[in-house]
């Protein structure tokens, strides 16, 4: 709330303040009243009637706060003050032996103070070079990438890149898994399958060329394994369609780096010609023998097809797990990636076989268009960010995410995929209201502990967040 207007200090005020300082304290109320009376008489005499409305009158300065120099000419007072400061500086150093602080003390911004106005969001992506483009099927293309300086991309098997593509002037961001084995000397690639009406997947399938640059963030994601040559394990993997990409990276890395580990893959597709990495899987099978079992399941199978048929529903999956003789030994780890109904069916089938949820890893990708609750407030909102013991106030414009506004204000914020898929930008909401695009990678437990993702989070009210571990 704005404070009440204070009246200009005049001669009466100064005279009254002088009298109040010179005379005993008991006299102060009398002097105060005399000041007000004198002012009133003077104003009336000069034709200025007091305002008839309550609250519109300027408040007289309290007597003890009246500056005795205020009736002198301003320029003179400024000189006097400057001289006073000079004398203080000299006596401080010479007599008191006290130097002025070498540091500039600045108050930290109080809550509510905006210290950083929104600017253009800095580029979060970096360009990768497209070194090769290989068509895997009629509807899928593998794009081979290196860093801009030609070096290999660092990643862990199963991780994904967030790819930014500008289509008709609009930035579209999508996640694509790296499908290569995570080994030195192996070229890195993502594989993009056309989706009906998918803007980015169609754009990339139609236009990407060797020599192009692709703007990316990451690699990101926790759908991954750590290969160790001493391991001897059995991974059971269920993939549907383009869900094979992170699975391919994991299985090939494991089979090549862990000599005693084996993989069983149940892999569903619409038809034989739609099977991405069909030949690569066959070649790998030839190379590693029984350590890899690939069970293709086709929705539209040819008549002479001897493998599984149909969509990967719970019944079909249970049938395939039985046919493959997979008995859960309480240690196996399961990896799922594919369309949402397939994932649901796989969870149910595994749960029915007594597989604990913590042994099942899954990767879900959703298109931003399918997300909800992403709009945020229609007005700019203030967000206070606590980081490393400091508080920064930023203004988040309508439509902007907290991450975008914070980066634009020059604040170091953790982030990786910038599309709600990896959790790297997780912060704790200490007050206010932040809404996120759904679904995202936060668990129910994290939501209950008031964690939010800044990359898909937009404030709905003035809010405060804490960047932990920074």
């Amino acid at each position, binding site marked *: 709330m704005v404070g009440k207007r204070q009246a200009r200090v005049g001669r009466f005020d100064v005279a009254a303040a002088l009298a109040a300082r010179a005379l005993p304290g008991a006299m102060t109320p009398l002097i105060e009243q005399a000041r007000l009376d004198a002012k009133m008489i003077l104003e009336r005499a000069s034709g200025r009637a007091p305002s008839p409305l309550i609250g519109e009158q300027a408040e007289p300065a309290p007597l003890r706060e009246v500056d005795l120099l205020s009736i002198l000419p301003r320029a003179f007072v*400024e000189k006097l003050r400057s001289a006073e*400061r*000079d004398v203080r*500086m*000299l006596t401080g*150093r*010479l007599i008191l*032996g006290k*130097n*002025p*602080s*070498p*540091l*500039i003390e*600045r108050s930290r911004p109080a809550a509510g103070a905006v210290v950083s106005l929104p*600017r*253009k969001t*800095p*580029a*979060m992506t970096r360009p990768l070079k497209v070194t090769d483009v290989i068509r895997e099927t009629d509807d899928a293309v593998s794009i081979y990438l290196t860093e801009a300086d030609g070096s290999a991309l660092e990643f862990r098997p199963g991780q994904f890149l967030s790819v930014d593509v500008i289509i008709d002037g609009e930035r579209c961001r999508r996640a694509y898994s790296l499908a290569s084995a995570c080994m030195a000397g192996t070229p890195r690639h993502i594989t993009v399958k056309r989706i009906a009406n998918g803007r980015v997947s169609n754009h990339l399938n139609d236009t990407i060329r060797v020599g192009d640059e692709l703007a990316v963030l990451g690699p990101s994601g926790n759908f991954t394994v750590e290969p160790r040559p001493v391991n001897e394990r059995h991974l059971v993997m269920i993939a549907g369609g383009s869900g094979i990409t992170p699975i391919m990276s994991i299985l090939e890395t494991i089979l090549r780096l862990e000599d005693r580990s084996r993989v069983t893959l149940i892999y569903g597709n619409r038809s034989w010609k739609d099977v991405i990495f069909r030949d690569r899987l066959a070649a790998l099978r030839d190379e590693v023998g029984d350590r890899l079992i690939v069970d293709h399941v086709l929705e539209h199978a040819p008549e002479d097809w001897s493998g599984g048929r149909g969509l990967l529903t719970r019944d079909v999956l249970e049938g395939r797990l039985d046919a493959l003789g997979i008995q859960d030994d309480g240690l196996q780890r399961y990896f799922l990636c594919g369309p949402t109904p397939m994932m649901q069916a796989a969870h149910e089938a595994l749960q029915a076989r007594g597989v604990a949820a913590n042994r099942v890893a899954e990767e879900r990708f959703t298109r931003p268009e399918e997300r909800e609750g992403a709009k945020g407030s229609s007005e700019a909102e203030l967000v206070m960010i606590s980081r490393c013991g*400091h508080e*920064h106030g930023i203004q988040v414009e309508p439509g902007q995410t907290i991450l975008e506004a914070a*980066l*634009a204000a*020059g*604040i*170091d*914020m953790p982030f990786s995929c910038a599309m709600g898929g990896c959790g790297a930008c997780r912060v704790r909401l200490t007050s206010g209201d932040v809404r996120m695009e759904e679904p995202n990678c936060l668990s129910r437990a994290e939501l209950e502990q008031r964690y939010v993702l800044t990359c898909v989070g937009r404030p709905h009210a003035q809010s405060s967040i804490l960047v932990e571990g920074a």
Partner: protein
Amino acid sequence: MLSDKVLDNLPQEVRRRVEPYVEAVQLMTQTSNAKVLRSMAPSGIRGLILQRGKQGVPTKMPSHHRVYFDWTYPNDHPDMRELYTRAKEQQWNGDDLPWHIDVDPENTEKPIMPRQFMAFDDLRDRGIRLTDLEERRLNSSVASWMLSQFLHGEQGALFAAAQVTEAVQFFDGKLYGSTQVVDEGRHVEVFHRYLDTKLNKLYQINDNLFVIIDALIQDSRWDVKFLGMQIMVEGLALGAFGTLYQMTKEPLLKELLRMVIQDEARHVHYGVLALRDHFRHELSDSERREREDWAFEVALLMRNRFLSFEVYEEWFEHKLTRKEWAEFVTNSPGFAVFRQVMFKRLVPNLREIGLLSDRIKPHYDRAGLMKYFDGQSARELSGDQMIAELDAA
């Protein structure tokens, strides 16, 4: 020197109190030119004695220059016009620097300044033992101090550039000057943002730097403003930025300095263009001598500015005398490199504008600066060239 002997015999506490004033008097009496003394002394008193820059209130400086209008808009200086074109093409946005980079001033893997910047052994010999952590913190304090001084210098440059734009008589120079005002604003922005959001530590303006800014802002003569700002402050800053650019392993600061250096190279070039003919052909001998002595006095102030007494006051005020600290800084390898590179950039420019006559050379020689006499002046050296030279070093 007599005053040194007197100081040495004073009790420690008394010495601590009067030493800054003795230094100030010594500095201001280095010049034998009465006109220089007359023009610099008030600034010296305001900066060194009254410490106006540290009084905790905004400083108001009167300005006495004449604003030069030309209603015919002549194309009067093709070199400046070209510089204006180049400046427009090379504008950049401070927001585009990689601000997302996390800066830890005490990180030993990407230090802002190398660990061996200061001679810690020298401190140990003086009885001050710092732990590993304290050494890193002192290094980080010096980095914040240096960048704070760059920031204060840039604020001075911002206002001086505006004044110079008003006062210069070349119309092409005025157009160019407008880009320099923008450049300086951007430099204030990026240095402040770096200090505020990355280092979280801001030092007061150094008294010597205050004197220089005060002197040139209040001087009514346009060419003295040019000399002070474009040649001395910008020229020395160019050297200082270049040295830090070479030394730092912190990627955000490196990029920031790379961009700033390219602007600064233009600024110094402008000063050389504006002053060369004026000093050589239009000034009387006595006027030129005065400029020469003024520039030398400013060079000494700049040298003293790098003695970083603010860091001394924060860390060692009751452990060392100012003189001991000044010796320590002077002997520290990092500061020595700074001094060398700064003057390497400055001296050739003074030569180019004709302010290094045989009369003044012995003074620079005594200050150990003559060895840079044959370097390239700003006229011969573009920002890109300078970055390439620094990268190759």
